């Protein structure tokens, strides 16, 4: 299995204490581990919410799913919330079927995701965790 996105770093950005991490075209072991590392790094930085953006992700395989479950677990342990944004058809079906959607919020796109996080923070839904 070759990962065309091979050595490309995972794109991510910071919006206040929210981190947006962009998953690649095919979320498998190679790219999944990079996404995971980036998420953990952002959590360690003290981000209280993670937005995982899947706008480019056409496929997620079993290893990709497991890695995402690990990211959700790490975020929970860090007291951070997770939002999946712009999830495409195949990935959406897999996430729904395997119950990932029960542990994250879903947003149409990045803007919607950031708005959701801002709203929940305003009404005090998201856990406040400072590192």
């Amino acid at each position: 299995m070759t990962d065309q996105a091979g050595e490309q770093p995972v794109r991510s950005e910071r919006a206040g204490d929210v981190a947006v991490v962009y998953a690649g075209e095919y979320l498998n072991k190679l790219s999944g581990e990079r996404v995971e590392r980036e998420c953990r790094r952002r959590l360690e930085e003290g981000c209280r919410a993670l937005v995982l953006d899947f706008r480019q992700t056409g496929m997620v395989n079993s290893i990709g799913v497991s890695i995402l479950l690990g990211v959700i677990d790490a975020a929970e342990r860090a007291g951070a919330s997770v939002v999946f944004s712009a999830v495409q058809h195949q990935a959406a079906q897999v996430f729904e079927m395997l119950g990932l959607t029960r542990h994250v919020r879903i947003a149409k796109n990045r803007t919607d995701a950031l708005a959701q996080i801002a709203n929940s923070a305003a009404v005090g839904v998201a856990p406040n965790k400072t590192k």
Partner: protein
Amino acid sequence: MPTAETAKLIHAFAALADLGEEIAATRDFDQMVRSTLHVVLGALGIRRGAVAECDAAAGELRFVAAWGMGDDAPASLSFDPRLLEESLRDSADPAHFFERHLKSNFRAELERLKVGLVVPLVVHGELVGAIMLGGKATEEAFTPEEREVVATMARHIGVGIYNHRLLREVERRAQENRKLYEDLRAVYRNTVRAFAIAIDCKDKYTQGHSERVGKYTEIIARELGWGEEEVDDIAIGGYLHDVGKLIVDRDIINAPYKIDAKQSSELNRHPAAGFEILSPLHQIDDVIPTVARYHHERIDGRGYPEGLTGEQIPLCAKIVSAADAFDAMTTDRTYKRRKEFPEVVEDFRKTTGKQFAPEVVVALFSAILKEVDGETRERRFARLLGRDYLQPDLYRPLIVELLAELGQGERAAAETA
């Protein structure tokens, strides 16, 4: 649009394909186990899990990979290895041992890790490990079909672990064998050297002769382009070429005067005697007894014991013959001091083609020339002959001249043929 059940099935099948690929393609054991754990978790959306390898002799389940457990996973879980042995006496299937003992033994630990499903990995009746799984992200119970998927994957992972172990074992043994072989080889070399010293002890004037002949032999063979093992063998032949002297009367060998005909024929028995001593040793290469037998033969047929000529004499014997003579000329003997280097060159100039094979003499002097010219970092001749014996500035032209002449000689011979 497939139904939910079909979609799950498709995902599980795709995961099985991922599993096969991870097991086959991942060389690193820990990484292979980690990937296979991911596949199982991702196939069914399981939030946490671990794979442990079983060391039956040590009574240990060693955690190789854990996911979604934070820092909770222990390094290992211990059990009494005798229990496994006893259990295997009652039932050949270690899964029974697993069900009866381990699960209850580790219950508290498994609860702490929030592990609900534990599947032993059994291959060829051997407990190779276990896979431990927490709950699904859907928070639903495992369906019978999902348990079947886990069982199938567990078999694959078990085989993966088993094969990796086998590979590690084979690699370990191969390494052990290599080490053993090298040790034996060293013992062999040391024994041979000790033997060479014993041979030289008989002759108080030629101390170190055998060892030096071994070294010159090695240099010549290497110069002729021989391979490492062949060089090793012929060097040993060099060390042992005079082993037959062990049966010759010490007084004859050490005679401070020229020996008479009878004594000479006694001394000349040593090549045949050497061959008889060495040829029954099947462990050593044929080159070694051959060298002992023919190292006093001459190209012109005037040597002994068989009076062979030219091509009849094996190359290995020609090499040792030149090495032997070179050392004899360059070391002090019973009744004469060693020759200066120009005399040695002159001697070889006269005797090459009669006593010595030209290609061997060319190799010997080419090696000397390389050292004189500083082309080799090892100063092997300087060490054997003493630092001042070879005087590069004075003697280099002599070597070049000899080599040119021998080259010329060969070419001339080829032209007249």
